[in-house]
């Protein structure tokens, strides 16, 4: 792991890990050091636990954006089989920020889709940093309809800073395409599972984010606007002070969204975050997806659609006739 991808608040953890590594190589199998090594290992574990149980909202955002954090294609590699990518949107082009295709997971054939941000600089540039254009959303819907036709469940892995803000995107109807996806997903007659695996950036996330189950990985975030954008508007400038403040105010962590009734499940990450143990988060995510798929495929479609309607219909908090109407999951 390069030192570039070391987050500021992970400094102490990395210092101890470096120390551990040097002890392990230097003193090899010597007896005297094992006590010390054990002590350091324990310390690292407890430090990670303390740190990651108490991440601020802004630190969570940084973890969600970690360059080594597993992305769509890493999960394709780890937990899906026989992925067959489908490229065409039938109108403009192949959006590399949003990938779609057939896949198998456990005993299920599914339509898999999600944003891909890329790990290296070159990948990132190819994928537009996970910011999709209208053609990406059109492709996604085209393949959701295909899934509906053949009763395949749809799995959407969300990981985007937002839909691409550019001239071409506006010319090609970014808002119209996202609006259409949202509308069609509210009534797509097949099970839909959405998981925010990293960044859940506003409309760009919601464009593949309406489903029977909406879940988040523990250190993902999901927000109506980026902390930077919010700070720039409400605090007039986005800097190292206002960004954390905005992140906190927006209530964008998995814990917040669970409390607000917006996400159904929070999928727990390995100690120290998904980037420290991709294999483990892969297993956890797979188990979670299979559990939800097994539940959802037993529900008759009409009932599924009614439940989906009500799930979103209940969201929101407002006052009326002296009483407060709460969002779905709030206490």
């Amino acid at each position, binding site marked *: 792991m390069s030192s570039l991808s070391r987050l500021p608040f992970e400094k102490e953890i990395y210092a101890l890990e470096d120390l551990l590594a040097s002890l392990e190589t230097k003193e090899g199998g010597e007896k005297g050091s094992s006590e010390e090594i054990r002590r350091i290992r324990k310390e690292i574990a407890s430090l990670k636990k303390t740190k990651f149980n108490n991440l601020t909202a802004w630190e969570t955002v940084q973890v969600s954006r970690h360059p080594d954090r597993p992305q769509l294609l890493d999960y394709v590699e780890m937990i899906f089989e026989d992925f067959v990518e489908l490229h065409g949107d039938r109108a403009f082009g192949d959006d590399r920020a949003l990938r779609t295709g057939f896949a198998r997971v456990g005993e299920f054939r599914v339509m898999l889709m999600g944003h891909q941000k890329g790990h290296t600089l070159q990948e990132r540039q190819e994928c537009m940093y996970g910011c999709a254009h209208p053609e990406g959303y059109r492709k996604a819907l085209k393949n959701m309809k295909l899934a509906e036709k053949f009763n395949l469940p749809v799995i959407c892995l969300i990981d985007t800073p937002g839909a691409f*803000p550019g001239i071409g995107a506006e010319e090609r109807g970014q*808002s*119209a395409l*996202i609006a259409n996806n949202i509308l069609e997903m509210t009534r797509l007659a097949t099970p839909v599972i959405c998981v925010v695996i990293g960044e859940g950036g506003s409309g760009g996330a919601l464009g593949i984010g309406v489903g029977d189950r909406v879940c988040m990985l523990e250190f993902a975030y999901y927000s109506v606007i980026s902390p930077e954008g919010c700070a720039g508007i409400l605090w007039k400038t986005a800097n190292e002070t206002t960004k954390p403040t905005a992140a906190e105010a927006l209530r964008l962590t998995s814990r917040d969204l669970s409390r607000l009734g917006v996400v159904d499940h929070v999928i727990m990450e390995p100690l120290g975050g998904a980037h420290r143990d991709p294999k483990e988060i892969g297993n956890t995510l797979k188990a979670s997806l299979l559990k939800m798929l097994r539940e959802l495929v037993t529900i008759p479609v009409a009932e599924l659609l009614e439940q989906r309607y009500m799930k979103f219909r209940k969201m929101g908090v407002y006052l009326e006739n002296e009483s407060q109407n709460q969002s779905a999951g709030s206490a």
Partner: protein
Amino acid sequence: MSSKESNQPGKALSGRPKRGVPEGLWIRCPNCKASLFRKEVEARLNVCPECDHHLYIPTVERIAQLLDADSFEEWFRDCRPCDPLGFKDRISYQERIEAEQAKTMQFDAAAVGRGFIRGRPVAVGITDFAFMAGSMGSVVGEKLSRCAEEATRLRLPLIFVSGSGGGARMQEGILSLMQMAKVSAAIARHQQSGCLYISILTNPTMGGAAASFAFQGDLTLAEPGALIGFAGRRTIWNTVRLELPEGFQTSEFLLQHGFIDRIVHRSQLRTEVAALVDYCEKS
């Protein structure tokens, strides 16, 4: 279902508009900068006599222009915002709500109800830029959703007039984003029931409003020269660092690129909507 009697801000729709063009005998056109005699502008439906720029009009005025006289019956007026996140920037959301309510004499940024357009019954929803830029918080989402549901139940054509600048209500965080899905679900059901939905885009219609109800119409109309789009111009410039094309994100730009059906002058809006409703009536 609808609470017809209420006092304080919600009452305003039957009263005189409190906001819109600033008070005074003369006003300045925000587009051509001409000094205009207020009375003359008002007599022309708040359209600039010099350059034809369509100025902001408050909800009451919109209702008066679009619907038959005194035909509007407001629904769900008592639906009011609160502060689910305990949001505070430089001032608290609660304080902001109160200030906006005092300024606009409205509980929030949307009004919905039923009325008649040249004798044709319709359900109508309006988002008003004057209240927190017309942004979609829980109240706007709830009112528009209920309006669509009522329209489905009563088998009425649905007409939404959007004047939502930012789209999202940041102070309600993720709940604001979820309103997009909520309203879309209600519109989908209305559409599925075979009823007509006409979306009218006015200046400005951006972000979350544009990426949901505003672009889900069977028919999409826009007033001339309205700013319509997904991302803000500054955000785009910061991302691509390219000069934005002439007329970028205007009604005319959208027409040219195939995303709206017609640009309709304010003076023709009522007539056009009536004609479109007639075309889509099932025989």
